[in-house]
């Protein structure tokens, strides 16, 4: 079933119209009821309108703004149903199948909608029908001020009999053609043979008729993504206090979790929508590192972002929608793909909480990989995006093993020492050295001069030839030296390029030892 409304400027004593420039002339884009009563209509040149109604007040039409406002209103209508979408330039369609009982029936829903729209000074006409086409027709051509027509599926044909053919959402040329052969009302089309109509006026005209009568289904593509689960909380009086909003979020989280727990599901993405009384909707969107259904945790995620919500004059509805629902077994409490130390701990809620405020990419883990290229041997991987090919990781390789570690200079006899800080990209240094294969005796890094007192090396690390960027890279072969300066600070330097080559070797600092 669908409903739609038409907006117009609030009634004033003076006639009012918006104007739009078209083909070098100013045309009326929309008129208010007083202007309409005086005989003005959209599309009329402004000069003509002025001659009819000298006191006409005008303003420039803003079609883009109108469209945005209509989309906002459609979004606000999300309080009635998740399936809402703007319809053309002047309507909103709502799929309310299965939603009406929450409001005490279709009539009550329409009355509630009408009341709220009136309070926002939105002129509207509402119709509810068994098909989208019929609701469209009734709202535009049959609705009166006294309540919305409600037409169940089996009475659509009767309801449409008296309406003009324009109510079938046809293009003007087709309507004109129909009128020319004397077909003015929809009822007059019923006895016509279908194939004859289609031949004469096109397949689309016949399809429109079938859509209106409900014989041809017409799906509604909603505004935005349709949530999998959705819970709503409405208030008798609008609320604006942050503490109240937080409590509402908590209540909704509990309601949602109650349902999820019954189904054995957890949620990955959530949208908390605050429907303000002025028709705007404020959103908080959060994601979780793994499927979750802990109400306290979810409420906390929202609470961290509540300060971004502007409640305006008040919030009358709060809707919590869950997207991306995944199976969550009661006992599974682990981060997908995380390392052994992190699995089994309750770190995931903390990761979510930090991620909500700092951005999901801010949280990472150090993943140890089997590569001899220093920057590839230990990589910061964003939590939740860990690599699944675990076979590349050799856990325990870097951990001390009894009998192999000496607590000495060389932490492990198998591996030369590695710095605690590795620069994200090696920084070039100004270095001075004597013999081709020697480490520098002096270097300048970040405007600081260091005299090398001791050095260990070189340790040759060549690029991995099996990688595409492999051996042809400039610094494919690096000779690493650990050097100690006069103060005792130790650095990890390397020389890119081989001594005997045409291009002089360049020196870089890659890390700092503790």
């Amino acid at each position, binding site marked *: 079933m669908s409903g739609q409304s038409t907006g117009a400027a609030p009634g004033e004593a003076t006639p009012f119209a918006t104007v739009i420039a078209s083909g070098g002339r100013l045309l009326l884009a929309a008129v208010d009821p007083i202007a309409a009563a005086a005989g003005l209509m959209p599309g009329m040149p402004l000069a003509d309108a002025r001659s009819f109604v000298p006191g006409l007040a005008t303003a420039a039409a803003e079609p883009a703004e109108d469209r945005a406002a209509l989309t906002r209103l459609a979004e606000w209508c999300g309080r009635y149903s998740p399936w809402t979408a703007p319809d053309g330039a002047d309507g909103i369609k709502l799929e309310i199948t299965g939603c009406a009982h929450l409001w005490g029936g279709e009539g009550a829903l329409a009355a509630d909608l009408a009341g709220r729209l009136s309070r926002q000074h939105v002129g509207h006409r509402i119709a509810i029908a068994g098909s989208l086409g019929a609701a469209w027709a009734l709202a535009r051509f049959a609705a009166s001020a006294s309540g919305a027509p409600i037409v169940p599926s089996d009475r659509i044909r009767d309801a449409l009999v008296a309406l003009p053919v324009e109510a079938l959402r046809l293009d003007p040329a087709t309507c004109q053609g129909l009128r020319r052969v004397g077909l003015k009302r929809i009822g007059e089309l019923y006895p016509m043979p279908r194939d004859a109509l289609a031949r004469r006026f096109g397949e689309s005209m016949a399809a429109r008729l079938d859509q209106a009568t409900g014989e041809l289904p017409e799906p509604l593509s909603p505004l935005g993504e349709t949530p999998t689960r959705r819970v709503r909380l409405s208030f008798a009086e609008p609320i604006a206090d942050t503490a109240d909003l937080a409590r509402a979020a908590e209540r909704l989280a509990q309601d949602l979790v109650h349902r999820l727990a019954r189904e054995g599901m957890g949620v990955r993405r959530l949208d908390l929508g605050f429907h303000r009384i002025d028709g705007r909707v404020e959103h908080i969107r959060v994601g979780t590192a793994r499927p979750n259904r802990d109400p306290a945790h979810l409420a906390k995620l929202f609470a961290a972002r509540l300060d971004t919500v502007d409640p305006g004059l008040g919030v009358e509805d709060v809707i919590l929608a869950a997207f991306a629902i995944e199976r969550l077994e009661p006992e599974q409490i682990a981060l997908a793909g995380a390392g052994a130390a992190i699995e089994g701990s309750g770190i995931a809620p903390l990761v979510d909480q930090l991620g909500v405020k700092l951005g999901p990419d801010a949280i990472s883990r150090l993943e140890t990989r089997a590569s001899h290229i*220093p920057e590839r041997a230990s990589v*910061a991987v964003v939590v939740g995006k860990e690599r699944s090919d675990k076979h590349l990781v050799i856990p325990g390789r870097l951990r001390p093993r009894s009998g192999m570690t000496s*607590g000495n200079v060389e932490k492990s006899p198998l591996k030369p020492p590695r710095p605690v800080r590795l620069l994200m990209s090696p920084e070039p240094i100004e270095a001075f050295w004597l013999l081709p*294969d020697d480490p520098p005796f002096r270097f300048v890094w970040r405007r600081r001069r260091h005299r090398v007192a001791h*050095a260990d090396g070189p340790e040759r690390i060549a690029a991995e030839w099996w990688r595409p960027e492999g051996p042809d890279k400039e610094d494919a072969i690096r000779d690493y030296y650990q050097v100690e300066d006069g103060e005792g600070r130790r650095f990890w330097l390397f020389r890119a390029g081989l001594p005997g080559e045409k291009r002089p070797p360049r020196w870089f600092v890659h890390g700092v030892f503790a």
Partner: protein
Amino acid sequence: MSGAVGLERIPLARNRRLPAESDLVSQRSLVTKSSLATKSIASLAALRDRVKRLEHPAAMAHGILPFDVAAIDRVLPGGGLVLGAVHEIIGHGGDEEDGAAAAGFAAGILARLGAGIVLWCQKRPDLYGPGLAAYGLDPARIVLVAVPRDDAILWALEEGLRAGNRAGLVAVIGEIGRLPVVASRRLQLAAERSGITALVLRRWRDGGEAAAERGQPSVAMTRWRIAAIPSAVPPDLPEIGRWIGRPRWRVELLRCRGGGPAVWPEIWEVETADATGHVCLPAELADRPAEPRLPDVGPIDRRRAG
């Protein structure tokens, strides 16, 4: 003797609080008195513990992490690093910006804290797993938070402290440039409440910031300054070439609440932390032979490569 009086007072105090149960409580106090006579030695130990607890409430609430180096532990109240408190670590010279030695010292402490997760907050991710592993800190234990602002790091640390044990954390560590007193106080309170240890690694952008922040007060339990110093060349090998010897740190205890040495700052020269996270005094300075934590495999073959 005065300790015994203290013990007697405690049931009396309880008595005043719960007048309805006065009969029951006075009976209990009788039992306490009689057992005091027989188990006076055990009671004395408990009493000492109690006095310590009164003197350093935070210290005893969550335990102590000794360095296992007598010279250092001696000057620390309680005989080690107080857990559930904030400890500040700063670098020296150019390392105030790089924070390498400080990170190594912190890694050694974190390694000895147990098997839980460490929340490590910094501005740009530049920690290197294999390097940390050398000081005993398994990189798989680290959850890294990279945010470019000090206040965001402080917030993350506080959230970490608040999540505490529930999240499986044993410690949080943040690399912070500017640390206002209020922020350090908040951290200290959160740490005391949760029992999680917070390390604040001061890392300054440049010399200007370092000069402005170096002397600022903070409410951290201790403040350490760690500097890498020239490595020890074995004395019996006069001409070892230019090889690097055993790396060393100069560890300075600049400040220590509730005790500490008579002379400030207390300075030790230690060998860098080993694979179990322990520092040790160099052999020629210690009153005992340098004793590695794990069995030695003998002299390392140190050929020059290349």
